[in-house]
């Protein structure tokens, strides 16, 4: 328990320190360097907070919309990423066949992708979720695959010598072994799904946090909501990250890591 308290204290200190540094940097820009763009480069933290409070209901509502689409995209993307990794590990040919193209597929920007997705699904919200999923499956796939490939060679041989089925191999050895890799991928993918979701908000600037950002950037007079939206998006990213960590704790409880079962956790 003691260690956890220390960690929380550290987290609080870092957050407070970060905001103090932000405030100080803003002061440097504005008060010392007299940068005419100071408020646009980095406004005072307290100014951002007061703008956030002023627009709290809108920011909250739009954040919720973006987070919801991100969650849907993330779930689909993670599932697709999982299945792809499994396929690639099961059949070496698939890996060699598909991996370069999976990587290449990540190079298609939304500008090129959107018309194709819209042509497939027609619906704006569906397109948004599909694109968010598209932008998140890759880290999950790659992480899980490298997990599968890191299964200890002796153990792999051992399993093989027992002539165990593929199913047993994944259930008993490969999957439990790869859990940390998988969750690492998910930890990277979850905040990515958030930024992807904010990105697809801009497909049609109706709602969502990305929409606030675009409108505030280019419109006249609503620039005040820009930084609150950025702050909200960052918070969403952290929340998604923490959710994955919590999920990991739950899963680790049910699937103890095979190779290290004995060690347990350092108290």
């Amino acid at each position, binding site marked *: 328990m003691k260690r956890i308290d220390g960690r929380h204290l550290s987290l609080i200190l870092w957050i407070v320190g970060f905001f103090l540094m932000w405030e100080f940097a803003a002061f440097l820009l504005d008060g010392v360097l007299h940068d*005419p*763009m100071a408020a*646009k480069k980095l406004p005072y933290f307290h100014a951002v907070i007061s703008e956030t409070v002023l627009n709290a209901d*809108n920011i909250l509502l739009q954040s919720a919309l973006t987070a*919801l689409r991100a*969650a*849907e995209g993330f779930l689909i993307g993670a599932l697709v990423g999982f299945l792809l990794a499994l396929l690639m590990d099961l059949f070496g040919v698939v890996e060699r066949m598909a991996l370069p193209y999976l990587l290449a597929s990540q190079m298609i*920007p*939304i*500008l090129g992708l*959107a*018309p194709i997705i*819209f*042509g497939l699904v*027609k*619906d*704006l*919200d569906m397109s948004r979720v599909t694109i968010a999923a598209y932008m998140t499956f890759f880290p999950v796939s790659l992480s899980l695959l490298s997990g599968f490939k890191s299964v200890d060679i002796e153990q792999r041989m051992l399993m093989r010598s027992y002539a165990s089925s593929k199913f047993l191999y994944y259930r008993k050895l490969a999957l439990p072994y790869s859990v940390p890799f998988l969750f690492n991928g998910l930890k990277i993918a979850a905040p990515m799904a958030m930024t992807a979701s904010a*990105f*697809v*908000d*801009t*497909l*049609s*600037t*109706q709602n969502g946090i990305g*929409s606030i950002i*675009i*409108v505030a*950037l*280019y*419109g*006249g*007079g*609503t620039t005040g909501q820009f930084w609150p939206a950025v702050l909200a998006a960052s918070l969403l990213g952290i929340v998604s990250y923490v*959710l994955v960590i*919590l*999920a990991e*704790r*739950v899963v680790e*409880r049910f699937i103890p890591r095979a190779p290290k079962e004995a060690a*347990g956790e350092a108290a």
Partner: protein
Amino acid sequence: MNSKKSKKIKVLAIALALAMTAALLASCAAKEEKPAGEGQTLDKITVQTLWVPQGQFAGLYIADARDYYEEEGIDIEILPGGTDVTPADQVENDVAQVGVLFYSSLLTYQEGGYDFINVFQNFQGSPQYLVAKKDTGIATGADLKGKKIGTWGAQWQVEFAALLGKYDLGDSDVTWVQQDYTMDQFINDEIDAASAMAYNEWLIANDEGWDESNTNIIDLNKEGTAMLEDCLFVKRDWAEANEDLLVRFLRATKKGWDYAIQNPEESGKLIFETGNSATEEHQIKMTEICGSYVQPEGATAGDIGKIDEAKAQQTIDFAKKYGLIKGDIALENSIDVSYWEKASS
């Protein structure tokens, strides 16, 4: 492992499961929420605009807000534009039936194989300014040699290329700098001359202290190098199959613009409430300025949306001369005035 810890984990598991179910339920609910439309007789039309809800599209938003579409038996949905999808692709994919595009830009799609026609010309000229601080000494197109010019992309740049061409200048005589839809680079002297829409970026520059007193405006309409901007386009086969619906839609849109032009203040407020994309004052000014391009001096309310064939031809000619399109496009294949005429009679 003590029981305290496993209890904590159980609570976590339950919380996670709950959160996920809630997210799923919420997303289902959000989808079912869409209004089905009470009157079965209403025909659905979706319009894809170029950008966020603003005075630039006042005719559409006002016709919607004042129920002109409903009176014509149309259930309207206006999709705001964004950065990563074009109205042309949305119409091509039947996500929308009507789109807003620059006429110059529509030409590129026609050349690219999209079977679209221009049926309604919103702006009877180009609201695009090239602005330069007075101390740069840039007052006309001739002064642009060796200068840095801000550009937003092909369809905007071609109008400046035409301006340069008028003064025997070419691409190699100037430096193009990508402008990021703000006026920051102009204000910070990163560029000598900036793109500015009369109804938007120019107003933003005004807010920051740059106006006629210290800034020169090059007006492309006065220079004679303007190309037609915002128009309404549809798929040719959709128009043929839905002639009556399209005519009704254009009639309501025309009425919407007429009302917006006569009541810019009320209209600007309405658009402000729709989109919240700029301040109320900004939207009112934007509506007023856009109105002056939709119904220029000397034109009547009846002329709203009319496609001026001479100006359209000039747009095609400039587009070809300055490389926006490579081949020829016949005017009669590119525009179709018949729907507007029926909507106006």
